[in-house]
């Protein structure tokens, strides 16, 4: 008897894997379906991918989504990096600071989204890309923060001391030693922030102004309007992008120095 194996756990696990992946696979398969009723299979084709490439609304939404994700991920990663530099290494109030940083993770997104909407309207901030960038930056911070801090924790303080010992001032130490050693963590954090922003629906749903939809918001309204094979195709594209980016981040986090 292998002490680590419990009966049925393997079967349940495989079942769960199927549960997690079969629906997505069905979606992907149907995106290659030539039939225009989204759920009846006729034969394989790339028609719908061709359609989404030429659909101007999807193009505009894609551009918005990319601008939003880049801007929010850059902002969030920068702020998270700075914060991680402050909280790592015997920082007495780390618990309190991290409680604040993790607020967007814990609070129900819909509540934060409508609250932000009301604030922006009350302040006269125009809804749209700018508003979304602000809100996304805030909730992406904890996602960027985690891998950066993990990397920093695993990094011995003595490298930075060695650099200072060898005449590098604080800035030079950061540039020549801390940053290069932290790089995989920063990249992993950026990737996660990017994916989080790219995939976000709720916040964008409330804050996107007229003419500035993002891809998820577009998909949602398209589903509401009726299921079409186009949605299958665009959903598949989104899935593939997320999976690639998350895998990238996963491997970056496991990278040895």
């Amino acid at each position, binding site marked *: 008897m292998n002490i680590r194996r419990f009966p049925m756990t393997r079967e349940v696990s495989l079942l769960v894997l199927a549960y997690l992946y079969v629906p997505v696979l069905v979606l992907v398969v149907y995106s290659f379906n030539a039939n225009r009723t989204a759920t009846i299979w006729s034969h394989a084709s790339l028609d719908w991918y061709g359609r989404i490439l030429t659909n101007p609304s999807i193009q505009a939404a894609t551009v918005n989504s990319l601008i939003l994700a880049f801007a929010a991920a850059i902002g969030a990663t920068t702020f998270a990096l700075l914060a991680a530099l402050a909280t790592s290494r015997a920082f007495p109030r780390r618990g309190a600071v991290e409680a604040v940083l993790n607020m967007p993770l814990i609070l129900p997104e819909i509540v934060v989204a409508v609250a932000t909407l009301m604030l922006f309207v009350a302040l006269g901030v125009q809804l749209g890309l700018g508003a979304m960038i602000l809100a996304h930056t805030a909730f992406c911070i904890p996602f960027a923060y985690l891998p950066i801090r993990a990397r920093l924790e695993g990094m011995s303080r003595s490298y930075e*001391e060695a650099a*200072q*010992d*060898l005449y*590098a001032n604080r800035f030079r130490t950061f540039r020549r030693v801390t940053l290069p050693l932290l790089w995989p963590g920063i990249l992993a954090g950026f990737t996660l922030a990017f994916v989080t922003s790219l995939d976000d629906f709720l916040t964008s749903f409330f804050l996107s102004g007229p003419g500035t939809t993002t891809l998820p918001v577009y998909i949602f309204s398209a589903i509401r309007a009726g299921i079409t094979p186009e949605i299958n195709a665009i959903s598949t594209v989104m899935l593939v992008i997320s999976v690639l980016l998350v895998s990238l981040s996963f491997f970056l986090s496991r990278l040895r120095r």
Partner: protein
Amino acid sequence: MSGSSAVSIRNISKSFGRGASAVRVLDDVSVEIGEREFFTLLGPSGCGKTTLLRLIAGFELADRGVIAIGGQDLTQTPPFRRPVNTVFQSYALFPHLTVEQNVGFALEEQGMARDKIRSRVGEALEMVRMHSFARRRPSELSGGQQQRVALARALAPRPQVLLLDEPLSALDLKLRKEMQIELKQLQAEAGITFLFVTHDQEEALTLSDRVAVMQGGHILQMGPPREIYEAPTHRFVADFIGDINLLEAEALPGDQLRIGQGVTLPMAHGKAGAVTLAIRPERARLTAPGAGTLDATLIHSAYLGTALLHKLELPGGGTFLLRQSEVAQTPLESGSRVGLALPADALRVLDQ
């Protein structure tokens, strides 16, 4: 050691933590280290050796006191402006840089010209015989090789003082012995003051010009190895360095010492009351029963190759170690009575 001080540490105190949980790690420590001296801090774990070194390097700031290097007060100077370099216990070689880039790191920071850097790096690597590894990454080197690179990196900028925090502790015994010799040679070649930290007493004694023995944030005794070994002034120092027998004794007026049951020794001591007598195992001698200072019973003897180590039981209880280098003699039976001679010049009288 020459007249001027390379490192001057005056009344340094350092505590960690605040308020009630504050721990004083260094308490009013003063040391003067001469130029080109090989100076060693020796002491048990947690006695504050690393902390003192880090204060000199500038990684920590002292609560009180003055640190001067080459006559300049550097107490508040950040590490990157101090003319000292450190060989870290973990080496702390930059993993993202090659050996060459590691060694050239400081030179680049000092704004040295490229070709000059290249030749300096070459020299430094030559000195530690790592020239052929210049393009490797630290992760592709063995522990001993990393050690050498760390040395070269710290020596390349030609600091006034080199700080070494247990640099050999990660190496196996054989490599350690080799590196000890190399370190000593390097120091002579480079003509730099070495401030070395170890808790290996043998290493301290073989390498150093002077040794400071630390305990609980204080320097107990400071001096050349021979003096530390042969004339310890504290019970702790005597006990910490090498094997030693410590006997409880009573100082009597008229230069007499009483050891246990009615055995008295004539000896100038200048003390009164309870004292500790210290004698190294190799300085006591075996005699025929009744012919020595006192008689004892042999518990057992261990053969050490070049010597015999006898464990004796003293009349008042307590054991005594005796190291006898003339192995040729006929072995003694366990349980036999022997005489024990304690030459007056081998005995040290210590406060309790």
